[in-house]
């Protein structure tokens, strides 16, 4: 301890922050180094001494001087003047002290290098503390086992000493061991899905604890940001995801396991290998800023990609939804916060290995395949009706019509005549792409240390060629308690992922079938159809590497401060290093003379938090929990891109860019740096665990904010009342618990990226002299707004948690409303200034909604269990005000039609002409600007004739509501889960496009350059009442009709069936677990939507299908 003190003196006063950082690193390293030493100094140290007739005080001095032991005592408790004689030969300190204090009023307690001398009390092994200024390192060892009512051990159950932060987790057999500070301590035992129980130790050293099942989940401990909290104590809106139910799904991204499973957390569909789904919490709080929630991994803000986190390594995911919960993250919290916690080694005191492997077959749920060659030919005949058919009814083919006129090149005419066609769609997609997952983990829990290690491998083939994805993960989490008061740990992972393979341009799936991919000799046709470079080159001949590396390490130390109960300090230091290397060589590039590039981007972020917490109870009534935080973050990036074309010798590819044409070798470099600085205070208080109060305040500084707005402050307050505990409700039989919550808080959205307040001079070699030498040019490209700042969201949340019918039904309902001010919006400047826009903070946006979650245990007979979870959420947003301009003088703020922003209306509103659903027919008088086979438009403005003024708000792209139903059925060793997810739009919400415009652009013959999807119902003279317009139509700009239809769907999103083999078999095989599982994803989709996929949206040439997946897997523990 002297060592530490010296260090503090030496470095503690150095003002420079870099040094401070170094200090925190040093601090952690020192603890790590000492950690390497064996667990007990006392065990190792052998003492040899020989003294006659010395006082106890002298003996203490001698021991302190010759060893590293320190004595701690109160003078009154020890007879210092007692004379003793001591002789020891390589003796353990315990034995020595036993002899010295054997029959005295004093007893001792050795804790590493410390020896506490305390008064002896009857019937206790160690004396307990008495006076308020005493030390608290006295320990009582308690052992116990936690089981459910059937006697099944509850591995992973949490045991916390009430009023402290001390806790352990039960091992695989439900056993735990814990040192207590008070023999009368109360243990709070909790486990997911079970009612939390408080157990009084009262001197027992072996406890048998049985937990009652509870679907309420109100009693688990959730992560709330810079700390944890019992769910039953929450005042805000915090949800823990049920990732366990989805663990048998081969989800490549962790977020896929959250899809639909929490009300208010909106997770989209993944459509390409290695992609993350879109994710948002509740409604929109920003127009142009960041919309995704803040991700916090193991307590630190995580700036990397979620796809780099192995879902198998994750223990829990908690979502902070309301402003009072998120306010602890200040200026980055307005979109909600997702807290991800990785697994630890806590468990049985032995090594446990787990191996899990699965293989999945994927296939598209729905695809828009390209039409056959005949379908392509029909496109000409039906597009060119005036030429291809005979007047007056155009039902007869014109024998003189020759669609090969329309073919772009003679090559295509040849291909047609030789019946030589190419199915591009087939060439560019994989029919049954596979997905492979392997995970091996090791968990170890020792007396004072725990370790979790894992390696994982994922290999996913893409639906489109070139979109393959492979990932290697490794994780190492170690926690070491090397003294009762000091815990040091590290949470780290390394992910290497491979995105190699050029993504194809998806429109190439619709290339004309008569543009032949291969020549007669089987070689690639360099220019199919004679005009474009063969896209198969990208698949077969490109050399593409996209290798990404992500290294994350979080080192932390927790110190339970000794002099006062409940005070502890935690410091962490996190660094995250990400590197992306992308190399491309195309031998066919630059007109077949070769093009190549090499790109290297790296980003490093590091941060450190100092967290001081104090938790205590006063007179058993007042419970207090205070958290103070101070920390910083810095993110640095750096990139280099180099390229060359026209290679003298292409054989080295991108590793020989210098062989490209000398004067066409290019280089581009980039770099950035951003910093944040923050502090936060949070107070949780409750009275009798009945009345709860939380208040937080965070002060956030960010380098990207304007000069005069460097810091924002975000306060919040919330309250809860466990109504069910009151006398007037206590006797209602069906009501087990009832709690109401209310909160209000401010949170921010940084919205502005770094450097957005800085004016920029853009320089480059932009001109040449008459000899062709490049000339350097520069100009100012932006007018910067020095005053830019964050958006502020004020949120109100009101919630009810209930537990009914003997805990058979529980749930919660939350109503919330948010108002965001200072929206980042780019206002138009007159071009006369030389610029056209300026980012400013203005306007107001509101959103409100309701989240409902219900759980019920339908049947529970021991052998057979069936439970259901139902989630529902709905949100409405509204643009309240923006520019505040009323140019048309109608007394109402003007809409911003060009940006599709309407005051008082929802964002994502669709403002367009309304089609009647009918098409103009041959025998009709067609108004100017329209064409036969074009959509008829509703005249809405009362002025005769269709103009762009007839545009109205047709609805919105936002959903009306979402719901999901999860059923869990257990029968003996079988476990079946099925999950239904749905997004509904009603009549005019959740709209998506449903027209052929992507394949059938208006007024251009380029419509013939591509194929169309097979079997689409478009207008022809024989098919006058078609769904879609005639091919090749001329419609004036601004009069083009588009169809919007609801994308509502219900999807059987996840099904999994697991079988756990019998214990007898497992034991015979010397295993601890053997499970076989089958699962399916996106198995059935009920929708009326015509496009690729209702959830992904889009009815266009670039669309992607959702993928169905069948999986078989194995899970072995040993």
């Amino acid at each position, binding site marked *: 301890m002297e060592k530490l003190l010296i*260090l*503090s003196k030496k470095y503690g006063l150095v*003002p420079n922050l870099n040094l401070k950082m170094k200090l925190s690193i040093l*601090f952690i390293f020192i603890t790590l180094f000492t950690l390497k030493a064996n667990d007990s100094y006392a065990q190792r140290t052998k003492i040899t001494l020989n003294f006659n007739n010395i006082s106890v005080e002298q003996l203490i001095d001698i021991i302190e001087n010759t060893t590293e032991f320190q004595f701690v005592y109160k003078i009154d408790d020890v007879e210092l003047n007692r004379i003793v004689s001591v002789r020891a030969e390589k003796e353990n300190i315990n034995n020595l002290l036993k002899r010295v204090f054997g029959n005295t009023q004093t007893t001792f307690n050795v804790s590493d290098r410390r020896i506490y001398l305390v008064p002896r009390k009857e019937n206790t092994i160690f004396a307990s503390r008495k006076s308020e*200024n005493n030390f608290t390192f006295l320990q009582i060892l308690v052992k116990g086992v936690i089981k459910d009512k059937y006697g099944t051990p509850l591995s992973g159950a949490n045991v916390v000493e009430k009023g402290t932060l001390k806790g352990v987790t039960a091992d695989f057999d439900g056993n735990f061991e814990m040192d207590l500070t008070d023999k009368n301590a109360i243990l709070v035992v909790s486990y997911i899905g079970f009612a939390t129980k408080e157990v009084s130790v009262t001197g027992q050293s072996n406890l048998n604890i049985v937990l009652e099942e509870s679907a309420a989940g109100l009693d688990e401990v959730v992560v709330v940001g810079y700390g944890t909290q019992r769910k039953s104590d929450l005042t805000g809106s915090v949800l823990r995801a049920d990732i366990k139910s989805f663990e048998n799904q081969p989800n490549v991204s962790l977020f896929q396991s959250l899809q639909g499973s929490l009300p208010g957390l909106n997770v989209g569909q993944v459509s390409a290998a290695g992609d993350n789904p879109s994710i948002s919490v509740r409604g929109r709080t920003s127009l142009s800023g960041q919309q995704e929630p803040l991700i916090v991994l193991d307590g630190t803000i995580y700036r990397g990609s979620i796809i780099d986190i192995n879902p198998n390594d994750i223990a829990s995911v908690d979502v902070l939804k309301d402003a009072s919960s998120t306010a602890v993250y200040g200026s980055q919290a307005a979109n909600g916060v997702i807290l991800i916690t990785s697994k630890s080694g806590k468990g049985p005191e032995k090594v446990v290995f787990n191996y899990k492997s699965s293989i999945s077959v994927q296939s598209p749920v729905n695809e828009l395949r390209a039409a056959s060659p005949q379908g392509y030919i029909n496109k000409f005949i039906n597009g060119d009706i005036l030429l291809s058919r005979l007047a007056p009814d155009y039902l007869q083919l014109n024998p003189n019509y020759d669609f090969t006129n329309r073919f772009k*090149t*003679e090559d295509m005419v040849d291909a047609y005549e030789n019946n030589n066609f190419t199915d591009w769609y087939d060439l560019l997609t994989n029919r049954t792409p596979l997905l492979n997952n392997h995970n091996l983990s090791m968990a170890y829990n020792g007396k004072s240390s725990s370790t979790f290690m894992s390696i994982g491998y994922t290999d996913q083939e893409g639906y489109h060629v070139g979109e393959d994805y492979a990932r290697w993960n490794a994780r190492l989490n170690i926690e070491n308690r090397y003294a009762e008061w000091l815990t040091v740990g590290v949470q780290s992972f390394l992910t290497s992922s491979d995105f190699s393979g050029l993504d194809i341009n998806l429109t190439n799936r619709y290339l004309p079938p008569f543009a032949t991919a291969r020549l007669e000799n089987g070689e690639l046709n360099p220019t199919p159809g004679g*005009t474009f470079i063969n896209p198969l080159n990208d698949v077969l001949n490109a050399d593409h590497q996209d290798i990404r590396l992500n290294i994350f390490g979080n080192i932390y130390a927790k*110190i339970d401060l000794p*002099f*006062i109960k409940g*005070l502890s*300090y935690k*410091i962490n230091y996190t660094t995250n290093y990400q590197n992306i290397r992308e190399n491309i060589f195309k031998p066919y590039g*630059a007109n077949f*003379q070769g093009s190549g590039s090499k790109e290297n981007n790296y980003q490093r972020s590091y941060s450190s938090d100092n967290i*001081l917490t*104090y938790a205590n109870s006063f007179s058993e009534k007042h419970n207090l929990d*205070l958290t103070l935080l*101070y920390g910083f973050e810095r993110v640095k990036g750096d990139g280099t891109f180099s390229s060359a*074309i026209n290679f003298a010798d292409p054989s080295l590819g991108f590793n020989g860019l210098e062989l490209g*044409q000398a*004067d*066409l070798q*290019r280089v581009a470099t980039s*770099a950035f740096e951003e*910093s944040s600085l923050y502090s936060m205070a949070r107070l949780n208080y409750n009275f009798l665990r009945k009345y709860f109060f939380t208040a937080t305040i965070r002060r956030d*500084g960010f*380098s990207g904010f304007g000069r005069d707005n460097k*810091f924002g402050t975000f306060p919040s307050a919330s309250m809860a009342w466990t109504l069910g505990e009151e006398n007037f409700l206590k006797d209602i039989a069906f009501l087990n618990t009832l709690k109401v919550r209310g909160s209000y808080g401010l949170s921010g959205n940084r919205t502005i990226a770094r*450097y957005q307040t*800085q*004016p*920029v*001079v853009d*320089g480059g070699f*932009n*001109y*040449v002299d*008459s000899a062709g030498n*490049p*000339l350097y*040019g*520069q*100009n*100012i490209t932006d*007018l910067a707004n020095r005053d830019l700042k964050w958006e502020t969201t004020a949120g109100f949340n009101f919630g009810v948690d209930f537990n009914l019918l003997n805990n058979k039904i529980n749930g919660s309902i939350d109503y919330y409303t948010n108002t965001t001010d200072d929206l980042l919006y780019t206002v138009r*400047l*007159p*071009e*006369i*200034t*030389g610029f*056209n826009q300026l980012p400013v903070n203005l306007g107001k946006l509101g959103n409100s909604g309701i989240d409902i979650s219900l759980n019920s245990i339908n049947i529970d007979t021991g052998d057979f269990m069936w439970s259901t979870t139902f989630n529902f959420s709905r949100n409405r947003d509204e643009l309240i005000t923006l520019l505040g301009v009323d140019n048309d003088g109608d007394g109402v703020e003007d809409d911003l039609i*060009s940006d599709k922003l309407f005051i008082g209306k929802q964002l994502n509103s669709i403002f367009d002409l309304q089609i009647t659903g009918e098409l103009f027919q041959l025998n009709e008088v067609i108004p100017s600007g329209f064409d036969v086979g074009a959509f008829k438009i509703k005249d809405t403005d009362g002025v005769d004739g269709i103009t762009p003024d007839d545009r109205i708000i047709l609805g919105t792209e936002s959903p009306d509501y979402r719901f999901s139903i999860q059923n869990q059925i257990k029968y003996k060793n079988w476990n079946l889960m099925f999950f239904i997810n749905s997004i509904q739009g009603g009549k005019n919400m959740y709209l998506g496009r449903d027209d052929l415009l992507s394949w059938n652009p208006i*007024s*251009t*013959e380029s419509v013939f350059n591509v194929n169309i999807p097979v079997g689409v119902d478009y207008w022809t003279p024989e098919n006058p009442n078609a769904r879609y317009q005639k091919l090749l139509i001329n419609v*004036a*700009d601004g009069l083009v009709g588009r169809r919007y239809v609801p994308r509502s769907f219900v999807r059987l999103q996840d099904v999994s069936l697991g079988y756990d083999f019998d214990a007898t078999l497992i034991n015979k095989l010397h295993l601890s677990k053997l499970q076989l599982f089958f699962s399916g994803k996106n198995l059935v989709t009920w929708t009326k939507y015509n496009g690729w996929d209702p959830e992904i949206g889009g009815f266009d040439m670039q669309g992607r299908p959702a993928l169905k997946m069948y999986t078989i897997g194995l899970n072995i523990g040993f």
Partner: protein
Amino acid sequence: MNLKKIGIKYDAKNSIFSSFILVVLVFVSGCNESEFLEEKPLDFLSPISSYTTFTQFEASINQLHANYRNDFWSTDDINQAPRTLFYGTDLALNDKDLGENPPDYSALTQPASLRILYMWQKLYSLIQNANVIITRADAPSSLLKKEERDVIVAEALFFRALSYKMLANIYGDVPLVLDEVETPKRDYTRAPREQVYRQCALDLEFSIKHLPDISKAQNHRINKEAANHLLSEIYVSFGQWDKAIGAATSTINNPGTSLMKNRFGSRVNDPNYGGDVYWDLFRQGNQNRSSGNNEALWVLQFEFNVSGGASGNANSSNFVLERITLPRLWQARIRDKDGRVRNLLAGGPNTFYYGRGSGFQSPSLYFRTSLWTKSGESDIRNSKFNIVRDFKVNNPQSPSNGNFVVANNLIILNTYTDTDRNFYPVLAKNSTPGLHPRELYAVNQSIPGSLLSTAGTTFRDHYSMRLAETYLLRAEAHLGKGDLVSAAADINEVRRRSKAPDVSSGEVNIDYILDERLRELYYEEFRLLTLMRLGKLAERTRKYNNKFVGATIEDFHNLWPIPLSEKEANTGADLGQNPGY
């Protein structure tokens, strides 16, 4: 952080606590927050340090050249220059399936339309870039010496005058901004067109004093005679005939300038092409004075495959006239003798067939025919080298291979009834036959000269100002003064070089000059601007392009409207609107 406040008693002797308190206090109070949060740009330059030295100011001048070239001569976008500045005049019509040739001319000039905004936006951006130079050259941070300052400001003023001239041509009255804009401003009002022209003249008078003589200036920079040429057009624009004649005369009389009357340059000896000096004027390498061309006053520099050689992508040269104005011969089909449809040209675009035209715009019927009939047969500008009207079938599969299309009455298949993208007279000046870069040759050379589809640009430099136009400007000034004899003399200087018969002074009027400009400067001048300057756009488009764009043009179309978004963004004052819109 007052620990006492929250009721913690502590023992100062306790070493753990002391060390902890020190760490916390250091973090809380010891840090210099503003220093930690200071934002330092790492990979971009800041205006504060970028406008001090002569080199930096020269770089800013280079950028003005790049802006002018890139914004007005480098795209084939339907809503951007140069396409918008040829279309809707007596010169050109657009292919039907490109969404133009609307029944109503008004569709082209909607205040909300992108094409209306584009010119306004790019010109004001150029003005701001010039104003930054002009303002910062005199700022305390400037390290320029007096003579350096003058020459830099002179060139910046040239670009400002050019931009305002174009703005006034197109929109009439426009806001005059003469200083760098450093803070957002939304209360602009318009200055009368003549005041704008007068400001241009004032700026150019300074430029002329300080710009180098044409024989001393670098080819890629602005010289005194370019400024005089522009000045004479500006004086013509508001009826200052004598001053216009003075400025033009200064250019014409400069010993360093003369019309090129004899064959010269890179392809004099090419056996396959050429035959006259007008053809030579537009061959590769022949534009700059360094090639011996004394007619050029200001040449925009393009260079294939060189950084800065073109806008955006260095691996191209996007002087896109070939693509915009030449027919898609490589897509032209004939109905062959055996009844089968065949390509006129096998193997795709071909350098010997004037490259990779895309047929976006074809010459008006007036340009194809009467314009030249009026001029006389001897006019070399209508020679078979300069306007190529017939082509040989080049398709080994075809029984007609080697036959001429027009001469042999081969049937060209038209997709559309009114215009044809694939087959119309080729304007040789906009292409470089036989000399497309080797890098753009197709792999398959079974038809020699086959090109890739990326080849559609004109691989030469571009005259932004040429002495022939100076003569025609002076003729305009003489005409304005009523001196028809001098006007005819200037016109005939230009006509004689092209072996065209003289025009008599009695025949000279503004329409004759406009015809002559069309013959001499087609696709070289911005035709729309010239017609707008003279208020002749509606009249001549109606008269000479009546079947297409001219059918519905109205007199108010002689000016474009003020862009709608600009009126909306200028919230502090009303910009007004031109009549008719």
